[in-house]
């Protein structure tokens, strides 16, 4: 396996005298000479490469290759998905189907699970994917090695994890200290990827080398160079794709090259110049020009929370339920969808994405109603007006600041539009754009900041119980002050069957939306794929990560 850096074309041919002179001529004679010089430059092609090779442009692969750090990233996950397999496959509707685990049993209160593994699966270094290897993986997902800087997999239910042991060559017993319904679907989560025991045992620094990460996926690493590219090639003996993907045997494509091109407009230009098969995350506002030019657009939605704002109820003015309701009623979501996004985006129907199996349509609790919003604000006593026309009470102007999330394309224009909507009902909303570290510092970790923008995926609705009250992340800063919320949380967390849980999730969602703790905006789309129409059979999992095992590319 090659070392990082070895992949770059190290032996770059030196520019010849002729090239230098041509380039020089172009520079000194001005733009008129450019086409001339351009035609003479070699080593470039306007067409994308071979028919059985996929080229993929991505804005960054900066998160590195330590799996627990980067496997959940929306960037590196694209690579991980092709290199590794998972125990189960979870589809965009939350349905769990066999993959490396061919079947499973669980006890009545969902505290103990027995996984049966498929026979004959091997990592690309030849090591078998057996009970021992799976136990090593489960341990690292649940616990990590924080003393060596290796974090556990965040969304894996580590809190109730008791242990895992081999119950035979190909069966694994996993136990939990409390009912953990989320265990099985989470095995299909993008953080839970199967790696060879040797890769797991490697140190943090060793793990940063992608070549050290040995998976059992349909592709294996060919070369990589940090911040430049990752090239994968087909694994010829691969024969254990999840049945639901509809293809067996080795992958259809011989190779995939992920190339890093950080600049948004450059990725768009490369796509327009047909220099790539796939461009990832292009600004939503220019997407129409791509569909007009015949490109295919994929905006897979994932399971999780819709894109929205969670409000801290201990921060003014959100300490008044009438103000919270007024804000949610004052946002014209249809106009946001029309102007900021394209037809591919869908309205929110709850605070959970519609794909989540337990979601019910609760739109009537937050639909646009500016008159109602104004009445609510009048009732709340915000009746005076400032010189600028904004509402005020006791000399205080009604307003707040939005810090659009740096994790989501389109978040900034959306915040600006919302600020216009709320201005109509007399609320002053200013917006300020921040980079990720500053945003974390100023918004996520600042308890005096009333609005936190949410873009979070999950594979199992059990996760919501852990975020809403003081025992969890306390999103709404209610602590233990809302007994109804606490009861519903305990019900959802402790449910031992999905049927029982579904009703509780609906009650919980209704309560959250009635109290306007959460302001839904639209269904979350964090990943945008602009694809050549030649590509066929790309599938997405529960967290909107594409799989290229079954993908083929037609001749142009």
């Amino acid at each position, binding site marked *: 396996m090659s070392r990082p850096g070895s992949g770059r074309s190290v032996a770059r041919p030196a520019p010849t005298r002729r090239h230098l002179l041509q*380039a020089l001529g172009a520079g000194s004679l001005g733009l008129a000479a450019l086409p001339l010089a*351009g035609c003479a*430059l070699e080593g470039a092609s306007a067409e994308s490469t071979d028919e059985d090779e996929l080229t993929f442009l991505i804005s960054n692969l900066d998160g590195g290759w330590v799996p627990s750090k980067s496997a959940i990233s929306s960037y590196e996950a694209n690579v991980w998905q092709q290199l590794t397999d998972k125990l189960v496959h979870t589809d965009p509707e939350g349905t769990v189907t066999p993959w490396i685990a061919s079947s499973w049993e669980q006890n009545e209160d969902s505290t103990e699970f027995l996984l049966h593994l498929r026979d004959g699966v091997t990592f690309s270094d030849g090591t078998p994917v057996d009970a021992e290897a799976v136990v090593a993986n489960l341990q690292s997902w649940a616990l990590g090695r924080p*003393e060596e*800087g290796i974090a556990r997999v965040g969304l894996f239910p580590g809190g109730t994890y008791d242990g895992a042991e081999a119950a035979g060559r190909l069966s694994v017993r996993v136990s939990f200290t409390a009912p953990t319904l989320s265990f099985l679907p989470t095995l299909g989560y993008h953080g839970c990827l199967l790696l060879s025991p040797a890769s797991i045992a490697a140190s943090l620094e060793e793990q*940063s080398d992608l070549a050290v990460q040995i998976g059992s996926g349909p592709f294996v690493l060919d070369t990589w160079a940090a911040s430049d590219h990752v090239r994968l090639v087909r694994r010829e003996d691969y024969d254990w794709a999840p049945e639901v993907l509809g293809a067996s045997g080795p992958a259809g494509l011989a190779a995939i090259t992920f190339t890093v091109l950080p600049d948004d407009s450059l990725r768009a230009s490369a796509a327009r110049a047909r220099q790539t098969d796939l461009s990832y995350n292009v600004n939503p506002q220019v997407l129409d020009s791509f569909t007009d030019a015949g490109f295919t657009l994929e905006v897979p939605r994932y399971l999780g929370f819709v894109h929205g704002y969670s409000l801290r109820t201990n921060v003014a003015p959100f300490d008044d339920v009438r103000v919270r309701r007024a804000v949610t009623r004052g946002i014209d979501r249809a106009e946001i969808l029309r102007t900021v996004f394209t037809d591919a985006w869908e309205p929110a129907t709850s605070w959970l994405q519609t794909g989540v199996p337990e979601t019910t349509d609760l739109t009537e609790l937050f639909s646009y109603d500016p008159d109602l919003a104004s009445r609510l604000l009048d009732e709340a006593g915000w009746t005076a007006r400032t010189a600028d026309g904004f509402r005020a009470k006791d000399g205080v102007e009604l307003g707040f600041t939005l810090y659009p999330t740096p994790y989501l394309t389109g978040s900034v224009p959306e915040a600006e539009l919302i600020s216009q909507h709320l201005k109509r009902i007399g609320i002053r909303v200013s917006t300020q754009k921040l980079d990720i570290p500053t945003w974390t*510092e100023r918004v996520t970790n600042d308890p005096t900041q009333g609005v936190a923008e949410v873009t979070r995926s999950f594979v199992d609705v059990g996760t919501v119980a852990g975020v809403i009250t003081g025992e969890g992340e306390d999103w709404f800063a209610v602590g233990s002050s809302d007994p109804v919320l606490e009861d519903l949380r305990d019900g959802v967390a402790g449910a031992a069957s999905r049927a029982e849980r579904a009703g509780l999730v609906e009650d919980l969602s209704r309560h959250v939306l009635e109290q306007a703790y959460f302001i839904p905006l639209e269904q979350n789309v964090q990943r945008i794929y602009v694809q050549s129409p030649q590509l066929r059979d790309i599938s997405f999992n529960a967290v909107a990560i594409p799989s290229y095992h079954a993908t083929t590319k037609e001749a142009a």
Partner: protein
Amino acid sequence: MSAAVTAPVASNSGAASRSASTARRYGTFAARRTGQALVVIVLCYVLVFLVLAAIPGDPISAQLDNPEAGYSDAEKAQIRSFYGLDRPVLLQLLISLGNALQGRLGISLSTSQAVTEMITTAIPSTLALAATALVLAVLLAALLGLLSQRLPQGRLNSLVRSLPTLFLSTPNFLIGLVLIQVLAVQLGAFSLVDSESVGSTLVASLTLAIPVSAQIAQVFITALDESAGQDYAEVALARGLPPTQVVLRHLLRPSLLPTVTVVGLVIGEVLGGSLITETIFGRAGIGTLVQKAVAAQDVPVLLVTVVLSAAVFVVVNLVIDLLYPLLDPRLRGAEAAR
């Protein structure tokens, strides 16, 4: 660059021992200069470290606080402690400096890769860009300089003489965007995807070379004009030597010294410009590394890359300072005496 060139001549010892004592003095001078350069680099390291420490937040916390991760406070604290981020800043500085002096540059906070490896991977790309750009810039400046002497007075000559100002006032990124739009998108003449290909490297180098060449060209043209006004040039012309011969044999040599000095100075310019150029063309060089480290507050990477850039600048100046007395005999005594 120092004011050493203008220092007064103070060497006046006996003829026999002059050569030996000059060599000794030059040795002392060189050692002192090198020592000064090392101190500058270490101070730069300390300064950058402290500035970075003053900025709130760090990438490890930012990663752990990523809303998709869901870690507990205890887990975050454990990981932060692994990276030593819970220690007092001064202690962190001492440890970091001690490690750096032993050649251990640490691991990146965002990728966990060894910083040394990240840098050695990025250097060839930047070197290819910077070296090609420097060569192109020198060629372009040479062309403009020679044209300024050989073209008859008139509109064309004025145009050539005004080109450097035009080049200098056109932003690097604008040149880059025009070249990308025309050459890559319209003509498909080079690959945007393979940013390290010969075609892409040439176009990126040209983007960088155009503004850099302007500074060299300006000095070169002025120096040539000055030499052309000297008696020996007029005598040569009067003797009937062809004008091209006059330029090449009589004007070029005396004009080279100031030009070479400028070339040394623009190396800093090339390094700075390569940051922007790398970003425009999506090249994975040192500039891109710095830019990403800034965005991610990746202190170990940022520290090493910034200190490395400073070190290159200091070393280039050191070499030039040490070379002057060797190149110009008149400066030998002067330098050695300081």
